[in-house]
């Protein structure tokens, strides 16, 4: 899952990125609203974490401008104040959720997962499922036919993204950006190598299949003998 963190305090920004990366999110970070808008223009994010207090233009202005430009990425706002009118104002300008500092990081993670689940009716909790394949976003565990499948961090991110877009083709560029970040080269065969690793791990009969979509990328679908 790709997250954009907009936070001007360097220590907080660095901590959020490290913590998110440790939880197998792919995190980009910027220090102000102008940089945030430019980054949203140049990349696709699953969720944006936006601090209210920023230099130049505050978080409310940034949120409103993103929504006005048609950016519908879920936005979670962070505030150092508990004021009710801050929350109301944030929701009015288009934020999806609010969290007051200091916060428990587990709560931030749960809220980010909840935001990215909205609109995806097949998932009711932190577990992504497709047939006998399960990916538990909370425990960061992959199971196939109830047996745990050992995956690396990169395989986990790749599989998570494919599951979030199950049954729909995903472009190589999208995959590369979400798993390896802006520095990824989607033409590189690294993607193919990791796809082949995952295919080997999804070999048992009835498992979902990663199909190659010519000139596009890949798609994760139910297996041919799946119920």
């Amino acid at each position, binding site marked *: 899952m790709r997250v954009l963190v907009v936070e001007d*305090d360097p*220590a907080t920004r660095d901590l959020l990125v*490290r913590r998110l990366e440790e939880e197998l999110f792919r995190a980009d970070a910027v220090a*102000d609203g102008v940089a945030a808008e430019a980054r949203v223009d140049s990349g696709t994010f699953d969720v944006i974490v936006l601090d209210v*207090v920023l*230099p130049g233009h*505050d978080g409310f202005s940034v949120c409103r401008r993103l929504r006005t430009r048609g950016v519908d990425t879920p936005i979670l706002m962070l505030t150092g104040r508990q004021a009710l009118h801050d929350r109301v104002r944030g929701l009015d300008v288009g934020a999806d959720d609010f969290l007051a*500092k200091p916060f*428990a990081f587990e709560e931030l993670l749960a809220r980010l997962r909840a935001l990215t689940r909205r609109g995806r009716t097949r998932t009711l909790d932190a577990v992504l499922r497709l047939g006998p394949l399960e990916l538990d976003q909370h425990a960061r565990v992959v199971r196939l036919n109830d047996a745990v499948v050992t995956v690396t961090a990169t395989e986990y991110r790749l599989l998570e993204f494919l599951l979030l877009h199950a049954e729909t083709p995903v472009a190589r560029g999208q995959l590369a950006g979400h798993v390896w970040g802006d520095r990824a080269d989607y033409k590189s065969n690294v993607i193919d190598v990791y796809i082949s690793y995952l295919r080997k791990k999804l070999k048992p009969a009835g498992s979902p299949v990663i199909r190659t979509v010519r000139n596009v990328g890949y798609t994760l679908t139910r297996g041919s003998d799946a119920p």
Partner: protein
Amino acid sequence: MTAWSDRVRTGWRGRSFKRAPDTSALEDLEGQARALRAELERARRELQTFASSVVHELRTPLSALSGEIELALLRDRAPAAYREALGRIADRVSELIELTTDLTLYGMRGQDAPGPSSHASLAVSLARLAERFGPPAMTGVTIGTDAPDVSIPGDQQALTRGLTLLVEHAIRHRQPEGSVRLRVTAPDGAASDPRAVTLVIDTSPPRFPGRTWRHLEASGETEDTVNTSGLFRLRTAARLLQLCGVTLRVHSSKESDAVHLLLHRAPTETGGLR
């Protein structure tokens, strides 16, 4: 007891007859009351803004501190990782300590002005800034330590901290490869004061042209100003420098945003200048 008819006949006034009130005095009082209420409301808003800003300033490092500890305890790590985490935690604690010092200095406002024996050395403050911000080649921050060694009335800690906060603000508001300079400059022609020394802090190029120092001179808070990063530190810097009698003026151009500080030299006992 005199009959009522006798009172009227003799023109008795008594206490039941009073002069009409002077309405102009009442109107004056009403005006004063309205002005006082407006002043009270302004003071209440300023206090609310100050409290909001302080809360934000406190919560930010506290949140980072809590997060670092949480992250360090999340799973077993190598000793080197723990040492790094402890280093970051120590940095956050230092920030909190600095904040409490700022709050203490902030509270000096409204107290009696420093006595005639309280002077701050500009050279000492600039030397401390140069040490804090390091060599320009590495940090892009130039502190002009060749300023004349003058004394100004005020507290040394307040002067140093005020200048430090302004330079830190400039650093946060420059472009990533930009520079910050603090230097002595020639005083404005018409406004030159032989008893004054002018310092300039400029940010080039600024991240938000024309907005770097906009809250330094503004008064009257709005919701937008409360949510501006660094507002508390900027206002603290202004207050601390005011205690030293420093005047601040903001200048903006396309290339740089600058603040000019006019420092007034302290007189000596014999009437000269320090």
